[in-house]
């Protein structure tokens, strides 16, 4: 690659993982710009747009509902339509669903309590810009920290999602077995992360930026996948 890949991390009122994402991306070699939700710059220069975790608008009304309509989202929609990469982490995932860029939605955890712990994730599909550095069946360990991380969608939609290989990560045990016991928030089909049909938009509840240079380090699989994808496309 000629120059460092560029990433933009968008801050909404109430985002609290924005600086974590900026830091994580920088140490992985990205040139990162922090953008404000009220800005409407062109996103053309960015290879990756990240919607970070947090409690945008306090999670009021519905998680991510108000952030989904922020002024900058017009540009984010455009960026996605052009097939460029958009990543939503935790609250970012919630926002992408509210924007309709990903199917389904995220609701209150089944046991109604906030969950902050490390979870194991099974890589279901390595054919994506987000998981190509791994193999199907690999197990990652990443932290979750959410009160509304239960993925839901209607039966028909679920069938489509599975059919098209959109499920990238499922909650599992240390050996990669998916089961009710390890699906702490009760997500439909134990889904922890999905991509859109085209594959350029990805949302996940766990926090890869918190396991980049700390903890398991497994967050790096996502960043490496992105970097190699961009590398392939770079002139």
């Amino acid at each position: 690659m000629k120059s460092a890949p560029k990433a933009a991390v968008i801050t909404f009122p109430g985002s609290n993982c924005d600086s974590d994402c900026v830091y994580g991306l920088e140490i992985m070699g990205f040139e990162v710009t922090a953008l404000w939700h009220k800005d409407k710059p062109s996103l053309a220069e960015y290879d990756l747009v990240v919607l970070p975790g947090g409690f945008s608008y306090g999670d009021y009304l519905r998680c991510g509902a108000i952030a989904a309509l922020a002024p900058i989202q017009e540009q984010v929609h455009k960026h996605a339509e052009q097939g460029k990469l958009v990543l939503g982490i935790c609250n970012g995932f919630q926002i992408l669903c509210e924007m309709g860029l990903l199917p389904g939605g995220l609701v209150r955890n089944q046991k109604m309590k906030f969950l902050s712990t490390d979870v194991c994730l099974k890589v279901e599909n390595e054919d994506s810009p987000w998981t190509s550095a791994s193999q199907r069946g690999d197990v990652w360990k990443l932290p979750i920290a959410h009160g509304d991380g239960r993925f839901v969608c209607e039966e028909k939609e679920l069938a489509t999602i599975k059919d098209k290989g959109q499920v990238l990560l499922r909650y599992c045990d240390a050996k990669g077995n998916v089961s009710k016991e390890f699906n702490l928030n009760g997500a439909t089909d134990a889904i922890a992360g999905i991509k859109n049909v085209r594959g350029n938009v990805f949302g996940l509840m766990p926090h890869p930026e918190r396991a980049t240079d700390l903890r398991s380090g497994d967050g790096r699989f996502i960043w490496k996948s992105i970097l190699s994808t961009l590398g392939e496309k770079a002139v």
Partner: protein
Amino acid sequence: MKARVHIFYKDSVFDPQGNTVQHSLQQLGFQQASSVRIGKVIDVEVQSATHDEAKKLAEKMCETLLVNPVMESFQVEILD
């Protein structure tokens, strides 16, 4: 006039709060309570000349922001 919006999760979405409350009601002797769903009510004061206008305006607000049709269903009533 006031537009009152009632919002519930769609039936296909598991409502753990409702579920818990239903069990509690039964434990308190209300065996007849067979199902509990918990939703939310949003009241919006709107400047409109007619009920119809107010209703249309409220529905537009629902479509734009107040309701997520992927997971929720809603009803609008207009109160004076």
